[in-house]
C-alpha cells in the first residue's frame, strides 16, 4: 500500500491541517459550544486516517509509531485520573471542580473558564484520539499469519 496519486497526497496534506485545527477547536471550546473531548478526539484520529488512506500505512507508522500511540493513550487516561485526584487533594472530593470553586473562576463565556472542564476535555481528546488511531492502525496492520496452527494463510 503505497498511497494514491500526487494530487490526492498534496490535497490531503493540506486538508490534514484543517482537520487538526478543527479538532483542536472542538476540544478547546467544548465547554462553550457543542462538541467536547470525545468528538474532537475522534476528529483528530480521523485526520490520521485520511493520511493513512492517502500516503499508505507505512508513512503514518513512521510519523506516529504504534508504541508511541499506545503511550499517548495511557497518558491521556492517566491525565484525566490526575485531574480527578487533584480534585480530591485540593477540592475535598474526588472529581471536585477545585479550579472553578477556589482558584480560577474565569469569566463567563471565555475560553479560560469553568475550571477543570477544559482540562478534562483536553485529556479526553488526547486519550480518544490516540486510542482510536491505535485501533484503526492495529486493524489495518493485522495480517493473518500463515505459520500458526489453525491459521489459514493469506
Amino acid at each position, binding site marked *: 500500500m503505497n498511497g494514491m496519486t500526487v494530487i490526492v497526497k498534496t490535497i490531503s496534506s493540506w486538508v490534514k491541517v484543517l482537520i487538526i485545527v478543527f479538532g483542536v477547536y*472542538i476540544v478547546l471550546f*467544548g*465547554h*462553550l*459550544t*457543542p*462538541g*467536547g*473531548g*470525545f*468528538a474532537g478526539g*475522534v*476528529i483528530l*484520529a*480521523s485526520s490520521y*486516517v485520511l493520511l493513512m488512506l492517502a500516503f499508505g500505512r507505512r508513512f503514518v507508522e513512521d510519523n506516529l509509531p504504534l508504541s508511541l500511540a*499506545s503511550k499517548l*493513550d*495511557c497518558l*491521556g*487516561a492517566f491525565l*484525566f*485520573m490526575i485531574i*480527578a485526584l487533584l480534585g480530591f487533594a485540593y477540592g475535598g472530593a*474526588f*472529581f471536585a*471542580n477545585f479550579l*472553578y470553586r477556589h482558584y480560577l*473562576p*474565569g469569566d*463567563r*463565556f471565555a475560553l479560560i*473558564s*469553568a*475550571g*477543570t*472542564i477544559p482540562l*478534562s*476535555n483536553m485529556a*479526553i481528546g488526547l*486519550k*480518544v484520539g490516540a*486510542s*482510536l488511531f*491505535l*485501533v*484503526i492502525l*492495529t*486493524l*489495518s496492520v*493485522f495480517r493473518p*499469519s500463515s505459520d*500458526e496452527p489453525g491459521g489459514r494463510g493469506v
Partner: protein
Amino acid sequence: MSVFYVLLLLILIASLIAIETRDLLSSVICIGAVGFGASLMFLFLRAPDIAITQIVVEVLGLIILIRATISRDLTFISGDREFFGLVVSVVIILVVFLAGMEVLAGLGRFGMPVMARVPDAASAAYIEGGLEKTGAANVVAAVILDYRAYDTLGEATVLFTSIIGATVILRKEAKEALSEA
C-alpha cells in the same frame, strides 16, 4: 413533529435492509445510513453535542466495519437458520414487543420531558444552576465533566479497555515460545 416520524421510518427501513440484504458490504453501508439518520434525528431533537459525536463516531465505526468485511473472499451469505428456530424466536420477540408497547404509554406524551413532570428533577437543577455552579455555558459539558464526571471516567476507561482488548486479540503470537519446555 412529523420530521421525527419521517426520520424514524427512514432509520427503520435502512436497518431492515441492513439486516436482510445478503451482501455484507451493502449491509455495512446501510448501517451507515442508519447512523446518519440517527445523527440528523439528534440534531432535530436539539442535541447538537450528540449529533456531532454520533457523526464522527459513525465515520470511524464504518471504517472499522468495512475493514472487517472488505477483502474477505466470502462476503455473500446464503441460507438462514432452520425454520423452526426462526419461528420460535420471532414469536418470542413479538411477545416482547407487544409487552413493551403496553408500557410505553406510561412515559407520557412525546415532547414532554420527564423533568417537567417530576417536581425535584436533577435536570432542572442542571439547567438553572449549570452556568453558575460550574462556569460552563454548555450544560451538557457541565453535566458530563463536572456533575457526572465520574461516569465520564468510566466511559474513558471503557474505551481504554476495549482498545487494550483489541490489541491483545490482534497480537501476532499469543503463546511465548518456551525454550525449555
